[in-house]
Every structure is written in C-alpha cells, then in structure tokens.
C-alpha cells in the first residue's frame, strides 16, 4: 500500500483542525507568557534600539554630527 493510498483514507478536515489546535495552543502559551512578563523586562528590551551606541571613543564626533541631522535642512551646496 503506497503512502498516497494511506493518506487518502484520512479525513481531510483533520489536517487543518489539528493545525488550528497547534496554533491556538502556541498562541495562548505566548499570550500567557507575555501578559505575565514584568513591565520592566519589556521596557528594557524595547529600549535596545535607542541604546545601541553605548560607548564611543571620545575623539569621535559622529555622535554629535548625527544629532538631529535633518532638522536644519541647511544646504551644503
């Protein structure tokens, strides 16, 4: 008996139903985790992009240069 024949005996609706159960289980687990996550932990994670230039060499002026580069809009012509 081939794999095709074996699978042909299965009830098709089982496939999406089982997958939906997988999804809902995973979703609820993640939701549970997220709701219980301390605010301080998520705030810390959320601030990572804003804190990605932690230590600069003192001679470097790029940080100053990069501050609000678009605000003035002055032409360099």
């Amino acid at each position, binding site marked *: 008996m081939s794999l095709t024949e074996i699978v042909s005996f299965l009830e098709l609706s089982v496939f999406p139903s089982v997958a939906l159960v997988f*999804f809902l289980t995973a979703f609820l687990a993640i939701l549970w985790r997220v709701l*219980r996550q301390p605010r301080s932990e998520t705030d810390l994670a959320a601030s990572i992009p804003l804190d990605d230039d*932690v230590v600069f060499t003192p001679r470097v002026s*790029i940080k100053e240069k990069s501050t609000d580069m678009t605000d003035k809009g002055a032409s360099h012509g």
Partner: protein
Amino acid sequence: MVPSTTKIHRRQHDAHTNRKRVHTVADQAEQAIHADAPSHPDRSGLESFVYDDKIVRMFAWATVGWGIVAMLVGVIIALELAFPKANLGISFISFGRLRPLHTNAAIFAFAGNGIFAGIYYSTQRLCKARMWSDMLSKLHFWGWQLIILSAAITLPLGITQGKEYAELEWPIDIMIAVVWLVFFGGNFMMTLIHRRERHLYVALWFYIATIVTVTVLHVFNNLWVPAGLVYFFEHGQIPSPELALKSYPIYAGVQDALMQWWYGHNAVAFFLTTPFLGLMYYFLPKAAERPVFSYKLSIIHFWSLIFIYIWAGPHHLHYTALPEWASTLGMVFSVMLWMPSWGGMINGLLTLRGAWNRVASDPILKFFVIGVTFYGMSTFEGPLLSIKSVNSLSHYTDWTIAHVHSGTLGWNGFMIFGMLYWMMPRLFQAKLYSKKLCVLHFWIGTLGIVAYILSIYAAGITQGLMWRAFDANGRLSYPAFIETVTILIPMYWVRVLGGLLYLAGALIGLYNLYMTWRARPAKYEEPVHYAPALSKNDNNDPKAESRLHANTALGDAGDKFIQGIWHRSLERKPVKFTIWVLVAVLIGSIVEAVPMFLISSNVPTVATVEPYTPLELTGRDIYVSEGCYNCHSQMIRPFLWETMRYGEYSKPGEFVYDHPFQWGSRRIGPDLAREGGLRTNLWHYRHFKSPQDLTDGKSIMPPYPWLLKNTINFDEIRGRVDSMALLGVPYGDLLLDDNTVEAAKQQAREIAVELESQGGPPAMETWDKKVIALIAYLQRMGTDISKAPPAQKAEEGEQ
C-alpha cells in the same frame, strides 16, 4: 486603558535607567577610556569593534539605483497599456516580457537591497557586533547585484519559468539560494551567535523569520528539470542557450498552482512584510526617539503573523480548479491575519505617541507614518479580497494591481525612503542636503500613489462589474471582451501620471542623497565601540523551579512552563529561536501541501486529456516565454457570466500535463482556457502580426512580428519532450528515434498548409516559424474535455 503621557515617559525613563544599570561595566569602562586612549580595551574586560557601514552604504545606493530602474520600467509598461504603440513591435520591451522585469526589480532589487541595507545597519547595532564576515557581506552584495543583472538580461530575452515572482530560470535560482542562504543567512546567523547584546530585539526575530521562510519558499517552488541538461545527456549534443536555460517545474497543474501561490503570497509575506516590520521596529523608534509603544504587543504580533501568514496562499485561487477545502482554508486564515497585522500597525503608529507634533515638521516621520498607514490599509484590504464573494469580483481585475501597489509604493517604498533619509546622512557623516527636497519628495510620492491606486481601483471595479453584467434578457451586457478594456484607457493614463509622479519623487530623492554624499568627509570616521562579550557563564537567566510538590514529572514540568521563562530563554538563543520559527511556518505549509500532493481524489483525472504534441509543447514554451500569462488567464470559474463568455468551466484534471500551470492572475485580455478551435489559423496569424488590424484599432495587445520571422529549433524539441517524459508525461513511442522531430514537423506543415488555404502566406514560408507552434498550442487549448472518451472511440471504431 491608555496610560498617560507622564506614565509613559516615566516608564521610558525607568527603562533607560535600568539599561544604565545593566551597562554599569560599560560605563566604568567608558570613564576609563576617556581617561586613557582606547588602546587597552582588555583592561576593562571589554571588546572593541567597529561597525561595517561600508556594506550598508553599498546596499543603500543599490536600493536607490535599482528602485529608479524598477519604477521606470513600471512607467513604461503602464504606458504600453494606455498607448499600445509604445511596444514598438520590439520583443525586448513588449509588455509580457517587461512586466516580470518590473515586478522582479521592484521586489528583489528595490525592496531587496533596501531590506539588506536596513538589516546590515540595524543588526550590527542591535547585536553590538560587526557582521561576522566582511567577505560574506561582500559576496552577498555582489552576488545579489549579479542576480539582479541576470534578471535584467534574461527576462527581456523571454527566458522565464512563467511563474509570477519566480520567473528567473534555474541557474539564477541556484545563485539566489547560495547568495541568500549561505552568504546572507550564514553571515547573519553567525553575527547573532557572536553578538554582545543578550536579548534578541524583536526586529531580529522578523529578520530570522524572513531568512528561514524565504529559503523554504524559494527551494520548494523552484524544483525543476533543466531541459538543456536532459537534452545533453540523452542526445549528447550541446543545447542552444535558449534550451540550456529552459526548465520545467516538477509540479503540474493544480499542484503547481498551489505551490506557486503558497510561494507567491508568502513572498509578499516574508519578503515585503516581515523584514519591513523588523525595519519598522528598529528605525521608527530611532526616528521618533522613543521606544516602541508595546513590546508585549510586538511579541504577539510576531508569532501570530508568521504562523498565520503561511496558510493564506490559496486565496489567490478562489473558484479555480483548486479543491474547495484548500481555498476555504486560505480564506479563513487570511481573515485571521487582520488581527496580527493591525496589531503591528497600531504598535507602529502609537510609537509616535507624544511625538505627533514632530510629524508635521520631520519629513522622515512623514514617510514612516504614511508607510505604516499603507501597511494598515493593505492588510485590511488583503483579507477583504480573500473573502470569496469579494474575490469573485476582484480577481483577474486591476483591483488586485491597485492593492499590490498600495502595499509596494506606500508601505515598502515609503518605509525604504524614510529609512534611507534617516540612515544615509549618518552613513555619509554629513547633514541631509535639503530638507525641503525631502518634503517635496514625500508629497510628490504621496500624490503619485493616490493617483495610481485610485485610478486602478476604479478600473478594477469597473471591469469586474462589466464582466458580470446581464441585460434584461439574461444575456451578457458586454459580450465583447474588448469593450471592458477600452473603457479603462483613461484610467490607465492616470496611472501613467501617478507612476511618473512617484518616479519623479524618487529622482528628487536620488539628487538629495547624492548631494548629501558629496558633502561627506574626505575619509569616513570609523568610531570604535566597546561592549562586554557574552559568554555562557554570565547568563543570568532565572531558572524555572517547580513550585509544586507534585508526584509526577508532568506536574512539575507544567508548573515550570506556566512561569513563562521558556520564552525569555528562547529570546536569547538564536539557533533555537530559528528552529521554532521554522516549525511555525512549516505547520501551515505541510497541512496544505501534503493532502494536495498525496490524495489523488484532489485532482480527478479526465480520461480524454492527453499530453501536448511536441509542436504544441514548443508552442506552449513560446507562450510562457512571451509572458502571455501576464494578460491572459487559462481558468474559467464556475460563474454563469464566465461560462457564457468563455465556455465550460475548468476542471482540475485538464491541467495534469501543464508544467508549469498558466492560469494567470489578471485578464488584460480574455481568458484562453477554451481558445482551441474558436478561430481560424489565419486569424491567429494576422492577430500576432497586428492585433489592432483585427479589432478596429481597439486592442491593447502588442504585435509579435518576431514570431513570424524566428524559426523553430526542431531538433531541440527532443530535449523538451524528454524532460516532460522524465516528469511522468506519457509520450510513449514519440520518445523513440526521431519520432518527436518528425511528429513536430508533420504537424507544423499541416497547420501551415491550412493557413495558406485560408488566405495566408505560402506554407513553405511559414511552416518552420515560431508562430506556427504557438498557433498549434492555442488551437489545442481546452479541447481535450470535449473529445470522445477512449471507450467511446473504440466503439465507434468497431462500428
């Protein structure tokens, strides 16, 4: 309840304070560094590193350059629809060949390079690490540009697989797999492994999902048999370049359609959505100078999105020969997508809380706000279009084109422009040349999008309603298809205008960025950064301990699970995280694909359907090569207005020898599923020569004079037929000796003689021309189903 601004600010302040605590070591080191030049970073236990911004600059320039090419080609093909004479009778620029170039350039060249620029910039900073290998970064860049260049050469030459957004032929497919997975994916993953930031920020999750899923999609949708290699090994002859680059997908008909739209939809999901969401989660907080509105929401957004998106592909095939269960599954999951998509959009827009006043003055924020808003609009419209009743009106019309362009021009385009305007002055270490030009770009681009999508929405709905309109006597109100096309021409002109405006905006952007680049320093400074290395020993993750005194291990395990620390651990382990992402996307794929491929009842056979003759197969390859599927469908849906116009609705069993399927997704011209026998050979011949001559100048189809001149390579038809046989197409005795070539020549002569008898040119002049093969294919289309079944034939023979 919405937290007050004060609370939010306090929370942000606390977060920053916490981070300061985390980086106490770093701060101390910084003081040491200030006191002493950074020549002894090891003293303080820190590692020094420099970000590779050169690779970001290279990708950023490639984004702008290829973006303008993509937009220019888009304007040209828009013009060809509004003004068909713009095709000029030149094969390289005919609509069917250029449209794939436009889509591929927009997706893989413009958006692709934009993604890479953003990912290389943000990943290094989020990981506090230089990319793992400069060599892999360079190989990635140059490999990707080579792929794009290959596409720009092969697609206008008509070298294509004939599957939307997967047109590139097999050697380029291999290049894509290597460049994407090995050079890009390998380098990215090794950077994550060697990072110096413990937590993987949510943007990195989206990048991981992008890399993993695009690999899976690309590989499984591009399994093929190269016809040139088959020809070489079977007959020992070197194939022509045309055959050498030709391949046939291993899937046929319904299965190929399911695989293609699983790929096609998820190319939108995992190439045009997830990486851009990652960029949104990084660049929007940077530009707004505040953290993302809700990190918790971003976690839910991520997992829901990647799990659900992968299921939605079949909504591209509603009312086709795809089994209904698969179609319904696609629709249900598409509707479910509303929630995570809007969760992401809301998270993006609310990141600007307290900074909305800056949107008025900061053009970068303007780009981001409109980009995210278009994301919300597109992801509202997508599920709407997936609902079967809506889809019955929208499918095959310009409505889909408008939807796609609101996403690419609005969401992808504006996010890229916003990102470039934010990033490139920093990369060039110079101020943006002109804020006014940036604002001008924003407004021209916005006007361009609005002009484009409004006109094309109107065109789509107009045409869809005209197709299904009946008069008082129950007849089609617009039986001539061409009536439903000519009415769209004014709207097509507005689209040209919209495209031109968007292109003009991009050119202004190019000028602005070029002038910014000119103000760069003679030598870029390369700031040295310091951060402590991560090691397994300093993993301060709390370990879950069971709080129960359970008698079973299961109870203890359950209690550890509900404490939720498992996810925090997952957020810090890139390899494990990647595996779970792969599991999430594979579940939906397997559920849809396995039953489709293994259950034979899904594709009931039709006894009278036979393989294409060698000449018809050659004609079909020309059909694919010319990109006819870009304007013509081969799928009659089971609606009265369709069966009255085109004939019997299409059955799954009719396509079992179609490698690749050619159902199409847009009807700029009429459906061709039952074209066989409807018109004479002479009509087709004259139609290819000049479509306008047969339609009082109304047709917008380009002429194909080269098909009347170029000859068929009869000998190489053996390579085509052998490849099909390798895929299981029963060609029987045709495979023996020179039967294939003789059969093809015989049929070609018969068609040419008939053509001459109908008043066409002498058979001796036409019999070996490509147009004859294409006519053979057209005359075969959809005719098998009306043939007498084998048993009936036998009975008739006996009588």
